């Protein structure tokens, strides 16, 4: 109950936030990215954190939502986008069921490996088919829903916020529900869970389906928001890894870990991308703008955010394997 109350309070604060910051597309854009990554990582966390099944291919579900929505809207421009979102969920669920039925009978390394293989099959198929736009991707010119101004960013801010709140709500509910206890039992010891009569495959598939469906909704929203998608934006292995990394840094298997991770990582990536970090170093007088190092930083730091992710991943696994929130969690 305490967690539900906290979710409600924070959601209310986030709801009011655009009114405080006013019309600032740049800041709103970053906030949308934060909400999206927090929601993606929370959705992944239901499967990875609570059931202990690390998926390295969540981009497949995100891409399924994004591609289903944009392909349908390209063919039927007048279709209600919400129907597309629903069909995206179905597409993602089919991929999830195929993956789950193949690998959840197996243990250990296999689920991780197979999730990558499935995601790569999806990515390469989208790249090679014609109706998916292939390597060029899909550009959507116009979209409308209930007379909302979908050219502004606010509807998407609230859309992402809604999905995040729903995801956190499901997670909070799962923590104390029968299913949630079963999932955690599976995570801690499959054999013990199985001998107590828990149907391993059923509950793993259930958590995968919930996780994939939420991820696909976020993919659809992203597609409608950016209105341009290609495989490198929505189906890349890098996206899957970013989702996991966000959860790891915040704390895997905690309710708020993914949110904390997104609040740290997304602004950091944005600072690197916009070269804010390089400029700050120069302005602080730490690095001279004309020196070799200064020029190198200016030219390269913007491309280095994946490198920084790599370094953070390594440091996090070595020194902070339970994430930031893991530091405060009571040992069970």
């Amino acid at each position, binding site marked *: 109950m305490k967690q539900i109350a906290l979710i409600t309070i924070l959601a209310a604060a986030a709801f009011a936030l655009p009114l405080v910051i006013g019309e600032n597309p740049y800041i709103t854009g970053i906030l949308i990215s934060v909400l999206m990554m927090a929601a993606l990582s929370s959705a992944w966390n239901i499967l*990875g954190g609570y059931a202990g099944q*690390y998926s*390295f291919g969540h981009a497949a579900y995100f891409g399924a939502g994004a591609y289903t929505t944009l392909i349908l809207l390209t063919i039927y421009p007048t279709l209600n986008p919400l129907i597309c979102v629903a069909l995206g969920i179905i597409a993602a669920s089919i991929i999830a069921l195929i993956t789950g039925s*193949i*690998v959840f*009978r*197996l*243990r*250990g*390394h*296999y689920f*991780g*490996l*197979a999730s*990558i*293989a*499935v995601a*790569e*099959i999806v990515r*390469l*198929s989208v*790249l*090679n088919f014609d109706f998916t736009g292939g390597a060029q991707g899909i550009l959507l010119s116009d979209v409308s829903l209930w007379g909302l101004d979908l050219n502004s960013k606010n509807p998407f801010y609230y859309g992402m916020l809604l999905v995040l709140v729903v995801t956190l709500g499901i997670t909070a509910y799962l923590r104390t529900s029968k299913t949630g206890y079963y999932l955690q039992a599976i995570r801690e010891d499959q054999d013990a869970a199985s001998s107590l009569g828990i149907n391993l495959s059923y509950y793993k598939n259930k958590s995968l389906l919930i996780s994939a469906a939420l991820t696909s909704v976020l993919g659809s929203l992203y597609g409608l928001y950016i209105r341009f998608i290609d495989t490198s934006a929505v189906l890349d*292995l890098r996206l899957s*890894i970013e989702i*996991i*990394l966000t959860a*790891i840094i915040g704390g895997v298997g905690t309710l708020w870990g993914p949110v904390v991770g997104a609040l740290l990582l997304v602004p950091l990536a944005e600072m690197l991308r916009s070269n804010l970090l390089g400029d700050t170093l120069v302005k602080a007088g730490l690095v001279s703008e004309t020196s070799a190092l200064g020029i190198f930083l200016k030219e*390269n730091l913007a*491309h*280095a955010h*994946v*490198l920084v*992710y*790599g*370094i*953070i*991943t*390594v440091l996090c*696994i*070595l020194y902070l*394997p339970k994430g930031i929130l893991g530091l405060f969690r009571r040992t069970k």
Partner: protein
Amino acid sequence: MSFLQPLLSGILTGGVYALAGIGMSLVFGVMNISNFAHGDLMMLGMYLAYFAFTLLHIDPYLSLVLIIPTAFLFGYVLEKLLINRVINHPHQNQILLTIGLGLIMSNTALLAFTSDPKILTTSYSSSAFNLAGGISISVPLLLSFLITCVIITILYVFLSKSTTGMALRATSQNREAAQLMGINVAKMSAIAFGIGTALAATAGALIAPTYYIHPLAGHSFLLKAFTICVLGGLGSVVGAGVGGVIIGVVESMSSTYLSSDWKDVVVFMIFLAVLLFRPQGLFGNKGGQS
């Protein structure tokens, strides 16, 4: 076109894949770690061969004499500094650590060598032997295959006859029992990772003359190496060897009879089919790994 042509090219390329697969399988067997940086280690091997050729003017095949010890040392140190610290961690932490290391390697390469693909052109790059029946064998592919055979033979003798080799196999079979018999399993892990790295870099160097050399090239090789390992049975060195050749042939056949765009899809489908029908692999022991 003759059926034999893609079969032959497939076997030749598959030999090099086998080398990468064996490296990964050895690491998996001895350390029980899925090494997600394996593809990026291959990429580093490609660049080592490229720079040995362009800067030092050493033939890419001769440069192996330099690349193998360098890569072994690199892998050995990497294990001692980082990998061994997660050896008792859950699998997912090991996977994430190696993914992180892979990202560091590929993106450092991206900054240092830019994203322009490099091509290593030797005097014999496009030459080929023409056999009866219109079949031709590319010289660089044949050389790579022959070198692969030599290396695999040396590795086989090393693993089956030498004391260190036997200790490695013992650690692979049962880490605790090996430790009780007085084997320094920590050292064996470092050696296994060193050999794994050397094999990855060698495979990279061997395909460098026939591929685009690119910082992100490791990605597709990583997934291929996993498919080979799972096909052969995770941890089985012989299985990885056979798996490599099978994957090489499958790839070559699907390029010829389907389309080269779909060859990776076919490889991953086989990966899933193996998990579905024979998860222990062709040569693995019964039962999934814990």
